[in-house]
C-alpha cells in the first residue's frame, strides 16, 4: 500500500488528536504508529528524517514534527491544525489532573506518591541521555563536554543562556577536528 498525505484538514486534525489522546508515557511511539502504520501518511525513512530535524531544533520534538508535516501538506493552516490537534486532549487532561491534585495535595501520602513519580520521571531523562550518549562511547572529549555541561548547569546552577553559546562553540570546534 502506498503512502499518501491526509485527505483533508479534518483528517489531519483527527489523526493528531488520536496521537495526543493515546500518548501515555511518551508521544513519539504513538506519532510513529498513527502516521506511519495506521494512516500511512509518511514512509518510515521520511518520518525518521523529519524527526532528526525536529530533535535538533529547539522546542518540543513531536510538536515540531506536527508543524513541519502540517506545513508540508496544507501550508500554515495545516501546521496550526496539526499542532492544536496534538495538544488539545492532553491539555484538558493535565489541567484536570492538576486541579484534582490541588484538592488533595495537603495529604502527605498523595504528596509522597506524586514526588516519587516526579523523581522517576527525572530518572527517565537520565536514561534517555544515556541512550543519546551511545555515539560518544569512544570519544573522551565528547564525554568531557557532556560532564562539563552537567557540572556547570545542574551543580553550578549557571544559566543555560550563558552555557549554550559557549558549549556550542566548543562543540563546533571539537566536531570539526573529529573529537566528538
Amino acid at each position: 500500500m502506498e503512502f499518501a498525505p491526509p485527505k483533508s484538514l479534518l483528517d489531519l486534525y483527527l489523526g493528531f488528536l488520536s496521537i495526543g489522546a493515546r500518548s501515555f508515557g511518551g508521544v513519539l511511539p504513538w506519532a510513529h504508529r498513527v502516521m506511519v502504520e495506521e494512516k500511512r501518511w509518511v514512509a518510515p525513512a521520511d518520518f525518521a528524517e523529519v524527526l532528526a530535524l525536529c530533535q535538533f531544533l529547539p522546542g518540543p520534538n513531536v510538536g515540531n514534527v506536527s508543524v513541519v508535516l502540517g506545513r508540508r501538506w496544507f501550508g500554515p493552516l495545516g501546521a496550526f491544525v496539526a499542532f492544536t490537534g496534538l495538544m488539545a486532549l492532553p491539555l484538558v487532561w493535565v489541567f484536570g489532573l492538576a486541579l484534582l491534585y490541588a484538592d488533595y495535595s495537603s495529604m502527605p501520602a498523595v504528596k509522597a506518591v506524586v514526588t516519587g513519580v516526579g523523581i522517576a520521571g527525572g530518572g527517565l531523562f537520565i536514561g534517555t541521555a544515556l541512550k543519546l550518549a551511545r555515539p560518544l562511547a569512544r570519544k573522551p572529549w565528547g564525554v568531557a563536554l557532556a560532564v562539563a555541561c552537567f557540572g556547570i548547569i545542574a551543580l553550578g546552577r549557571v544559566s543555560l543562556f550563558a552555557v549554550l553559546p559557549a558549549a556550542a562553540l566548543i562543540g563546533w570546534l571539537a566536531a570539526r577536528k573529529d573529537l566528538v
Partner: protein
Amino acid sequence: MLQIAFYFALLSLVSVGGIPSVMPEMQRLVVDVQGWMSAAEYTQLFAIAQAAPGPNVLVTALVGWKVAGIAGGLVALAAFCAPAAALAYSIGGFWDRMRDAPWRKVFQRALVPITVGFVVSGGYVLATPQGPAWQSALIAGASAAALYATKINPLWMLASGGVLGYFLF
C-alpha cells in the same frame, strides 16, 4: 503573566533536545530567582505532566497555571511553543536541501554531547527536589536503568516511582 510569556519565549529558543534541556533553567527561574514555588512543588508539577498523556512540554502550562491560573497556563504553553514552532516552520525546507552539506553533519555531531549534558542536568534537577538523598537516587537510578536496558513502557517506571515514593517519603 507578561514576565512568564517573555521568559518562556526565550527558553523556547534554547531548548535544543526539547523540554528536558530547559528543565534546570526553568526551575532556576521559577524557584531560585522568582520564588514562585518550591523545588518540591516544581517536581510535583512535572510529575503531573508526566502522568498525563501528551508531550512533556505540558509542564510549561502547569507552571504558568501555578503562577497565574488557567490563562497563565495557556500563555506559558503558547509562549514556549510559538518561537520554536516558527523556527521549525521556516527551517523545514532548508534543512532538507542541506541534507548532504558537510557543516550539517559537523553541527549534528557537535550537539550530541551538549544535549546529553543538558538532559542529564534536567533529570538531576527533577530528581533532587530536596537536595541529594538516597531515596531519590534509588528511584531515579532504577527508572533510568530500566529505560536504558529494557523496552518496558515508561509508564511502569513512573508507577513504580509513585509506589516507592509512598513508602520512602
